[in-house]
């Protein structure tokens, strides 16, 4: 018999659930009201409601410049991860290349190595070649970090794709390229979109590696925030955090909406 069916049980479970949700959400949500407070203060609840902090953010080119840098890097990482990751996942899933398991393991490597170790490694490796403070280096580093997520999500989509589609296309005389682009790729759409979403979000809020390899010209928003927190606790941080949350959320919702529309058709 279900012990929650009677008495306090009917209330207990939802209550616990809501407390857990709040516990998870409140720390990220509390900055939103704070970001609408007055300049020079950072308290909850705010004493006055203004947009001063946002004005401060957009009035300072170093702030919104780093936001643009973050967006630029994140979009490039998303594209690069997709272009490299999707064909790689296809090969890893479908071909019988020797050493496939080893390659698969290597591609998943960035998930297993502590980020700080990766960051230090990149720093030591790039410094002698003068590749620090370089946007391309940041893009490549983030792509490496995001790649396992693309491989996992496209790999899962491929495992659910009946090989009969590829077989029948092959029997009908289609070549490998045509099969990949006309038969396989369109059916991986949701897997690719999920992987691209992960890539974008991972790059957008990555701070450890970026902190090591960026410089004044290439600073991303999370790095700038971290530096700002270290030198002075500026209330602008609350506005930046809110913006970053909104961008991530909007992007995630957008991808989910696309996926749902895809399924409805």
């Amino acid at each position, binding site marked *: 018999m279900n012990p929650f069916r009677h008495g306090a049980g009917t209330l207990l479970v939802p209550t616990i659930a809501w407390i857990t949700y709040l516990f998870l959400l409140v720390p990220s949500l509390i900055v939103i009201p704070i970001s609408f407070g007055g300049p020079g203060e950072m308290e909850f609840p705010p004493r006055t409601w203004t947009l001063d902090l946002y004005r401060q953010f957009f009035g300072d080119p170093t702030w919104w410049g780093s936001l643009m840098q973050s967006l630029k890097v994140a979009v490039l990482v998303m594209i690069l991860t997709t272009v490299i990751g999707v064909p790689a996942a296809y090969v890893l899933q479908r071909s019988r290349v020797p050493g496939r398991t080893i390659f698969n393991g290597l591609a998943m490597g960035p998930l297993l190595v502590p980020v700080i170790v990766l960051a230090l490694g990149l720093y030591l490796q790039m410094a002698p070649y003068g590749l620090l403070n370089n946007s391309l280096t940041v893009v490549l580093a983030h792509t490496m970090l995001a790649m396992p997520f693309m491989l996992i999500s496209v790999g899962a989509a491929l495992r659910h794709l009946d090989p009969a589609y590829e077989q029948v296309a*092959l*029997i*009908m*005389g289609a070549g490998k390229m045509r099969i990949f682009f*006309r038969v396989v790729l*369109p*059916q991986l759409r949701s897997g690719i979109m999920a992987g691209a979403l992960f890539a974008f979000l991972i790059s957008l809020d990555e701070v450890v590696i970026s902190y090591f390899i960026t410089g004044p010209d290439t600073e991303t928003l999370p790095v700038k925030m971290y530096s700002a927190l270290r030198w002075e606790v500026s209330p602008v941080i609350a506005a930046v955090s809110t913006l970053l949350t909104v961008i991530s959320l909007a992007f995630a919702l957008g991808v989910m909406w696309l996926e749902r529309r895809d399924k409805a*058709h």
Partner: protein
Amino acid sequence: MQVTQDMTQTAPASNMISVRGLGRRYGSFTALDALDLDVKRGEFVTLLGPSGSGKSTLLNLISGMVEASEGTIRIDGRDATHLPTNQRGLGMVFQNYALMPHMTVFENIAFPLQVRKVPKPEIKARVRDVLKLIQLENVADRKPRQLSGGQQQRISLARCIVYRPSIILMDEPLGALDKKLREDMQLEIKRLHAELGVTLIYVTHDQEEALAMSDRIVLMRKGRIEQQGAPEEMYFRPDTLFTADFLGSSNLFQGQIDSQAGCLVTPQGRLPLPAARSGAPANGQAVLMLRPESMRLVPEDQASGGLTGTMADSIVLGSFVRHFISLPGGKRAIVQEPSGPSHPRPVRGATVGLAWAPDSARLLPTDPDFPNL
């Protein structure tokens, strides 16, 4: 019949497919064992057998999905043993249809024509013609999932015949459909085969389907051909117990041959032997096979070889009746007779005799896989 472009140069051979010594092993398991098979141009050949008998392996070897461990495959006179799948000029219909879910019906059928670089106006015309042929002209703009299973399978047939491959392979194409639809589709496939004159290789484990459709049945067992022949031949003149048992239902009696008396001595009676006994042992142990429709119920004293039993049950199946008769030694015989007033049904528990024309029986060698007959 028109064949694909890359096959027009070769002189027409009488055999569309010619397989010699073809084998496929997976580790220590032999899926296909040094098999020989010829398929004539325009023939409808069914590969029949239980799962694991090698019929799908043979089909996959012909399509090139699976690499042969040994032997050769010739397609239309050309050595195709190591030819890539997409250059073999084949068509294939799968059990799960394998229609591209992201393409419309039109795009699905147009796909193989695009592969062949057929000009756009011709693609339109040919897709329209083939949709007319399968009587589904109004679904061109729909997605496959908006169609019923039967419609989807007809679209996958259309996608296959639209590019006029010289050979069409079908892997249990009707397995996912219900009985009524399956019978309609059997007729449809037979009609298309007759109209197009295409060579058809059809894989199934359904013996009724094989009997209904094929020019020739190739019955497979453990990676070898057990027996092959026209449906009637396979049904009425099986060479082995396996064939007799797999195709239709049969009554099997094992016993000792008494060649002087011309009968088989079994626990149930001294059963008369047929005159034709090719392939059967001349003496020793053997098995007598009788189809239910070759036997009839008679009064006890007229029973062939003294074979009598008690009526256990009888069921009416429309135009005929199936009687189940308990025989001595715990055996049970099935007798099929026409139904109707001229054939009164004995009551349950009555003692009846069984009779048959001796030449409608078939004497077969014993088989270790059929121990308790």
